[in-house]
């Protein structure tokens, strides 16, 4: 059985799943930047006591599932979301949805995902994909970060749906139910809500590891890494940071560009004249993040090994934090 489903590739998995599922449900205005902006996906956190793959734990995205939930909520779409304790029940529920012609979003772990390159398979449990059919033992998969649709055997799908560790997916399924037609005014309202939420979160939360403060926190940490860890480990830490910042599924700089694209599109819906200018600011911020990655790569490639190189890296992040603060404050100032 195969449900007609349009696969649109996206930069980030959850944006893509959200976009593709909502489009399938008839909300044709939605695209990746809109889903990302309305879902307030832009984010920063540095978790000080946690290590991921023996490196620092930073995230440029909200908790998994939130982009989908917030976007649907803002557009007045009811969501069905289920977790399972038993693998058999999880598969039965998936099959039942497919039988009812409903493509389903799944949270999965990347480590056992057979169609990913081996080099990309880490224990990361918050990847998202859509199952849109089943032929024999093969499930038809639309993974939005891949160029084309693909397949997984039922055993392979079972395994990735029940990976263990941080953020274990527990077979999680989600899809929009009860979708009414969405007007442009409704989208404009949702956009305003998303912008306010993100701007508030990035600048107004009085927690030192969140948002703009979190970026400063990381910057100060980086300056100390060389003394605390020695050059080699500090380099490995930076490499990990850059992977978090640029890689498939996360991507700090990438997210800034998506956000800039969102603000540009938002202008057509909400007609606030500040938006194109702020969009340019976010483009500049994305470029600054990329420049910091280049600086970091100079360090972990062993070209630059001095303390002053780490200081430069830290200062670049401090500057980015200032740029972001300014941009988000500008968003907060908009009168809706």
């Amino acid at each position: 059985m195969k449900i007609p489903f349009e696969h649109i590739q996206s930069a980030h998995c959850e944006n893509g799943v959200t976009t593709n599922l909502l489009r399938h449900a008839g909300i044709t205005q939605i695209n990746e930047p809109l889903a990302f902006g309305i879902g307030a996906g832009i984010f920063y956190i540095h978790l000080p006591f946690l290590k991921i793959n023996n490196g620092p734990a930073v995230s440029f995205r909200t908790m998994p599932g939130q982009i989908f939930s917030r976007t649907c909520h803002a557009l007045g779409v009811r969501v069905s979301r289920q977790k399972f304790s038993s693998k058999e029940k999880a598969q039965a529920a998936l099959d039942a949805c497919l039988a009812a012609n409903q493509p389903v979003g799944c949270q999965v772990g990347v480590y056992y995902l057979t169609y990913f390159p081996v080099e990309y398979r880490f224990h990361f449990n918050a990847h998202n994909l859509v199952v849109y059919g089943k032929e024999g033992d093969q499930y038809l998969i639309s993974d939005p970060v891949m160029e084309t649709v693909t397949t997984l055997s039922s055993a392979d799908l079972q395994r990735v749906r029940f990976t263990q560790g941080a953020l274990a997916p527990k077979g999680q399924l989600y899809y929009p139910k009860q979708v009414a037609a969405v007007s442009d005014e409704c989208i404009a309202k949702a956009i305003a809500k998303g912008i306010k939420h993100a701007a508030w979160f990035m600048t107004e939360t009085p927690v030192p590891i969140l948002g703009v403060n979190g970026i400063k926190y990381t910057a100060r940490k980086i300056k100390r890494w060389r003394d605390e860890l020695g050059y080699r480990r500090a380099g490995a830490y930076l490499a990990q940071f850059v992977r978090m910042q640029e890689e498939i599924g996360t991507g700090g700089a990438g997210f800034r560009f998506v956000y800039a694209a969102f603000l540009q599109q938002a202008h057509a819906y909400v007609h606030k004249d500040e938006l194109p200018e702020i969009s340019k600011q976010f483009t500049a911020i994305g470029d600054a993040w990329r420049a910091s990655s280049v600086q970091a790569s100079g360090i972990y490639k062993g070209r630059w090994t001095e303390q002053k190189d780490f200081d430069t890296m830290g200062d670049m992040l401090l500057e980015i934090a200032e740029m972001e603060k300014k941009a988000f404050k500008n968003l907060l100032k908009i009168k809706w």
Partner: protein
Amino acid sequence: MKKEEVPQDPSVLDKFTKEVCYAVDEKGEYTTTLSRGWQVKADALGITWQDVEARVEEARQQIKNGARSPIAYFMEVNMMDLAMVSAYTGFWQWTIKRHLKPDVFKNLSDKKLQKYADAFQISLQELKNF
């Protein structure tokens, strides 16, 4: 980032897919374009894997010297920590710490070893005859 600045460096993705990137075109409008990869990212990934290999090698040496049991090696190969092995096998973390001692490992029943073999996706023999 301008559209023509989107990096197109060879990467491990080449045989699998390309990445979507958002970039600005000549008119200043955002558009999407596909990227093969970026050297800066490829290097970061390379360093991370070197790190994993070093840890695997270290575990191999420790087992050779009789300091730890083969479970340590497969944990590093699979990049699993105690919490994750615990979740996959159902053993407590302190139990796994005990099983990491060669003397304790030696006397483990096949039933218990099978749980580890399943978690690491290897056969019982591979685990026993390391």
